[in-house]
């Protein structure tokens, strides 16, 4: 099956589509990290004292970890130690840090997002998706604000939230991911520059999808955004996140934090399409994506659902988690992780069952090609008080080629007798008989592999909101495209 080999080679080597650089003025802080850097970031953003203090506490914690070189090393990843003093921690894509309307945004920036297929104007309006756009470290545009405000929904950049809704930010920031949580969460807490903030008031069903697009543009910078979503009692919101970055031969660091709080009867659905630049075929360059995402089902009968399609980044280190504190609360994690060339992904979830009758579902699909390594790592913990807690986990791996790796590391901790936990995992490759069957129906190798891979991921893609699902399928197709298609 030489053409299958060629196709897989093509898959492994296929180029990154979003690798262009936008030529715009940027206000970039000098490289290096100290208390002064933290103060500089805060002052650029005119932050109040309480915020500065919080950042400094986080910085000191991080500095003590960094001094001990206490980096998280347990993941199945190989990369050299990062020189944290050789990164710029702040870059704004224009000297003007805030915009009152889209008209004020640098046309180059708008053009960038058009090229990424994210129209900030008419098109998205028609689709009914409210978008917040974060380029490098700063939120450049948020659409549909007024429309949302009518429902009492707050959807704005993190900076604006600090300014306009300090009581909410103060109450919730770090309440799900404390600044001491882990090395990269501490770093983010010290230097985070912007991100999205969202609050849905009690009983409100958000009338449209909320969405944030992240883009790293400047060289030598890291991106450290922070997202905070609060769904008050009985509310509902579906939130989408997408990310891309230019092709550069250096590794760039992205260390984000996402916190979600779901109160009684609230439901939050969070979907991600992560397509940061993965580096080239030889494994040079690409984003180091170290992200802490966690939600808490704080109230009874609340629900948090994570869906992700991970195709980008040189390294992905990410475990969107749910703390099931409220009784009868529900946590879900649906993931497709696709790695090729020299990409490495160590991703999965944590489901921490604290409340009674809580239930969680984990479905993870890993696809490895080229010389990549793709690991699922997940924790299911049923605490002693979580009576009648349930979990079902399924982790399937598909191997395309014989030089890649697929790994599964579930951790299952059951601390009472009424908990029911089931975990299943399989690893397989695309079968030659499956390809033959497709061929016999006139379908070529490349198309056959695409069909089979899409079939493999289907139940996850079905979890994505409609507009996103199309995008996701397109992205997967591009990823599989390679030299043949």
């Amino acid at each position, binding site marked *: 099956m030489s053409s299958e080999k060629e196709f897989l080679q093509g898959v492994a080597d296929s180029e990154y589509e979003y690798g262009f650089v936008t030529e715009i003025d940027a206000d970039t802080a000098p490289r290096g990290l100290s208390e002064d850097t933290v103060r500089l970031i805060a002052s650029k953003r005119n932050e109040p004292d309480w915020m500065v203090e919080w950042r400094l506490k986080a910085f000191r914690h991080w500095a003590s970890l960094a001094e001990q070189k206490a980096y998280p090393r347990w993941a199945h990843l190989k990369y050299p130690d990062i020189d944290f003093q050789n990164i710029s921690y702040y870059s704004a894509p224009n000297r003007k840090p805030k915009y009152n309307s889209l008209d004020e945004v640098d046309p180059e920036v708008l053009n960038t997002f058009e090229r990424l297929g994210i129209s900030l104007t008419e098109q998205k309006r028609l689709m009914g998706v409210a978008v917040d756009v974060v380029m490098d470290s700063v939120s450049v545009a948020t659409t549909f604000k007024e429309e949302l405000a009518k429902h009492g929904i707050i959807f704005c950049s993190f900076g604006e939230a600090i300014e306009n809704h300090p009581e909410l930010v103060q109450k919730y920031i770090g309440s799900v991911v404390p600044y001491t949580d882990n090395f990269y969460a501490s770093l983010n807490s010290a230097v985070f520059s912007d991100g999205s903030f969202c609050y849905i008031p009690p009983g409100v069903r958000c009338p449209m999808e909320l969405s944030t697009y992240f883009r790293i543009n400047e060289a030598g910078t890291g991106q450290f955004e922070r997202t905070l979503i609060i769904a008050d009692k009985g509310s509902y919101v579906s939130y989408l996140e997408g990310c891309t970055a230019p092709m550069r031969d250096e590794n760039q660091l992205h260390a984000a934090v996402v916190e979600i709080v779901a109160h009684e009867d609230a439901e939050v659905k969070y979907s991600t399409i992560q397509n940061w630049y993965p580096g080239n075929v030889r494994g040079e360059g690409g984003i180091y994506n170290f992200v802490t995402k966690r939600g808490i089902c704080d109230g009874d009968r609340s629900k948090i659902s994570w869906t992700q399609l991970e195709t980008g980044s040189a390294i992905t280190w990410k475990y969107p988690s749910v703390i099931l504190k409220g009784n009868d609360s529900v946590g879900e994690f649906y993931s497709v992780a696709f790695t090729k060339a020299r990409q490495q992904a160590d991703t999965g979830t944590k489901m921490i069952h604290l409340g009674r009758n809580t239930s969680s579902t984990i479905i993870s699909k890993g696809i490895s090609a080229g010389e990549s390594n793709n690991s699922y790592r997940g924790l299911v913990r049923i605490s002693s008080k979580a009576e009648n807690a349930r979990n079902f986990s399924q982790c399937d791996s598909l191997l395309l080629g014989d030089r890649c790796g697929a*790994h599964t590391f579930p951790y*299952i*901790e059951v601390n009472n007798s009424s908990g*029911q936990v089931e975990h299943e995992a399989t690893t397989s490759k695309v079968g030659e008989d499956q390809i033959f069957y497709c061929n016999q129906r006139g379908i070529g190798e490349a198309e056959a592999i695409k069909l089979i891979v899409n079939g493999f991921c289907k139940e996850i893609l079905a979890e994505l909101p409609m507009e996103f699902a199309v995008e996701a399928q397109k992205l997967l197709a591009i990823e599989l495209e390679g030299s043949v298609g």
Partner: protein
Amino acid sequence: MLGAALNGSNAFLHERRRSAVEEFERLGFPAPKDESYKYTRIGRLFQGEYAVDADAPPISQSQIDALEVPDLDAHRLVVVNGHFQPEHSRIGSLPPGVIAGGLQDASASHPDVLNRFVSKFTATDADPFEALNTAFVRDGIFIFVPRGKTVEKPFHILNLVSVKSPTLVQPRVVVAAESGAAVSVIESSVAVDSVSPTLNAVSELYADTDAFVDYYRLQLDHKAGTVVTTTNVYQQSTSNARTTTITLGGRVVRNNLRFLPDGEHCETHLMGLVVANGSMHVDNHTSVDHARPNCVSNELYKNILADQSTGVFNGRVLVRQDSQKTQAYQSNRAVVLSDDARMYSKPELEIYADDVMCSHGAATGRIDPESIFYLRSRGLSLEDARKMMLQAFSRDVTDSIRVAPLREYVDQLVRQRL
């Protein structure tokens, strides 16, 4: 002063021992953050004062007879506090060329044969307890079956511990089957009249081409003791190795099993059953390193956890890059009977070859209330219904025991325990 160290005049063992001392010094007891001891913080159990090795106190024949497996016709080898006891053993007649007896004796009488197998398979992920045993081991059992020979009856190693003060007892068992040979070994360990016994046992199994090695480890009563065992299994092509680990006793038990099927078409079976109550803590840590293509491994562990007991299962399956056509199946199931009992499972699948069939499953839960209800509606008492369900649960493992009297015996013990 205690008896001589194992090496005596054996230069090879002397060298192995020296490097093991160094290795142990480098590794030390597992630190609190050691990932491979995540759920069993065993290091702290070794913080107090304890003696390393003890002489064997007199043991009466009746004490030994009480530990026999009923109806089992076996070549019996008795070890007390790690020292082989020929006067209590009943080896019986063996096919020509078969060696069975004390490790110390074998080191003197058959050094060339012994040196081919002792410490020959050292896993890449070095473990301090194995190093500790190698460093200080004095005696144990050596069983050697030459090319093409089959030992019809199983060997039964009775491993007794009897110490009056905190003591680390470190027996070592080496079983080697040359090409085409077949051997079954049962190793049962019990502590009698003991105060805080600590057992650090190492067994090395070697199956050459086409050989068959069937090995059972029975962990019976250990009187609040700490038990660490290491079982290293090395296989050549088309060999078949089976291990069955039955744990019914011990306060803290940690079993490390490491398999290296180092030839094509090997068959590897790992079975385990844990029935724990009180504050028992039982940790089974298995690793199968599929280094060659076309091998099959099959792993099944069952845990029944009552009272405040804890079960841990960590099963690593590594399929290396060129190990195509590997079939690796793993399953770990647990029944948690009380709210204070807990189960931690950590299966690990690491796969670098693409043409493989691998799966693992883990399930933890309680006995299905519907089934209990069904049995009760047919007239069974709650207690009997529970027992029936649990026995059925453990049967997949006990049924796989190939030595019939042993299967009966284990079934019996499990029934008593339930």
